[in-house]
């Protein structure tokens, strides 16, 4: 009777983790640091740490939040070493719009607008859009109050719409 060793089970679990979450994690890392190469390093370091700490993962449903937390710590370590300014659009390596012929004008304009957002607005927005996290979950991840997160998300969208000149039906609605 074939017997799966704990190591191979652990390896399979890890592989599923990488295949299931590397996409979202890379995109989150990219919007966190604004650089493709650095984002790739961050994701790789995150998964290596996750591998070492895999036994501590108890709640499979919370795995994405767990990985995001590890990635944020890895990113914070970079900050400890040297300032990594990513608030300025000039620091962002935005994808070449020519590489995406369809929707390129609107998409690249929106990407530039997201890059221009202050980190405090951009990060919760990216967590929500990429990770599908609720305001409560984002608040827990960022160590903020839920009301503060709601305000940041509201302002982030307002700023984006304002920059792109989108007609906004929520104009006139005060912040939460």
């Amino acid at each position, binding site marked *: 009777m074939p017997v799966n060793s704990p190591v191979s089970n652990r*390896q399979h679990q*890890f*592989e599923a983790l*990488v*295949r299931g979450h*590397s*996409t979202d994690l*890379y*995109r989150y890392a*990219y*919007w966190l640091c604004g650089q*493709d190469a650095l984002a*790739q*390093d961050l*994701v*790789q*370091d995150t*998964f*290596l740490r996750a*591998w070492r700490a895999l036994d501590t993962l108890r709640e499979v449903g919370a795995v994405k939040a767990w990985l995001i937390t590890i990635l944020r710590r890895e990113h914070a*370590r*970079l900050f*400890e*070493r*040297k300032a990594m300014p990513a608030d300025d659009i000039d620091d962002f390596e935005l*994808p070449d719009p020519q*590489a*995406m012929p369809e*929707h390129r004008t*609107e*998409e690249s304009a*929106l*990407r530039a607008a*997201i890059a221009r957002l202050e980190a405090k607005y951009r990060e919760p*927005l*990216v967590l*929500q*859009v*990429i990770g*599908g996290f*609720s*305001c409560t979950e984002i608040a827990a991840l960022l160590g903020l109050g839920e009301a503060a*997160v*709601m*305000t940041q*998300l*509201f302002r982030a*969208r*307002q700023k*984006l*719409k304002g920059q792109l000149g*989108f007609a906004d*039906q*929520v104009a006139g*609605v*005060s*912040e*939460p």
Partner: protein
Amino acid sequence: MNCLEFRRRLGSEPACTLDAYVAHRAECIGCAAAQSRADEFEMRLRRAVGVPLPANLADRILLAQTTTLRLDVRNRRRGFSALILAAAASIVIAVVALNRPAAEMPVLAAMVNDHLHEHIVSAGEMRVAVPRQDVIDMFAQRGVTLAEVPAGVNYVHKCPAGPYKTVHMVMPRNGSAVSVVYVVDAPPQSRADFRHDGTFGREVPMGGGTLVMLGSSRQGFDAIEDAWKSALGSGVAEAGVAQARLAGPAVPQAGLLQGRSRVAAP
């Protein structure tokens, strides 16, 4: 939930699934239309945030992980044979150390050097300083308590060197990397500077063990040695220091042999 509350929530969490939110949308035509417009914007937003992915991202992560895993397993296996070799190696070290010329690589340092040939630290692994706590923990696992942590440890790992237990670190100094390996359980060595096959090195008895530094030049050795003396507290064999500094070979010009390094290119 009234319309104002709904619109506030819509502006911050358009995919909200709260019962009150869903119920209001179902009964208010204006808010339902606002939700449709918001959904359109969210679709654009998702497209924009979804930047192109690097090719084979998951495969490359898995490759990096399996490489690390293989290294860990190999290091563990070596631990068994290390016990058997320990006694024999101690005798060899004692005999050879007594007879070697000053500038040749000491046996313990040679073991460390061999280990560094096998354990290549990638540039990515040593880009930034590791947290102080990681260094403290790594030494603690080797049974060594640090009084402080020297600044600029960019890589730390428990490794074997021959039969001995070590803490393997990388400390970049002035643009080149210095491999700093603290050997915990080898018999005390005398202090020595050496140069072998383009590698500069220094072996210093310190805190009950031996600190071995290897690099493409001796630049930074003095500062690193001083920092680790403070970190490892008492027990530093100061007696041989002055003598070894006098007897050691001339320090080469900084910047020479910069290409020689144990650190892999990215």
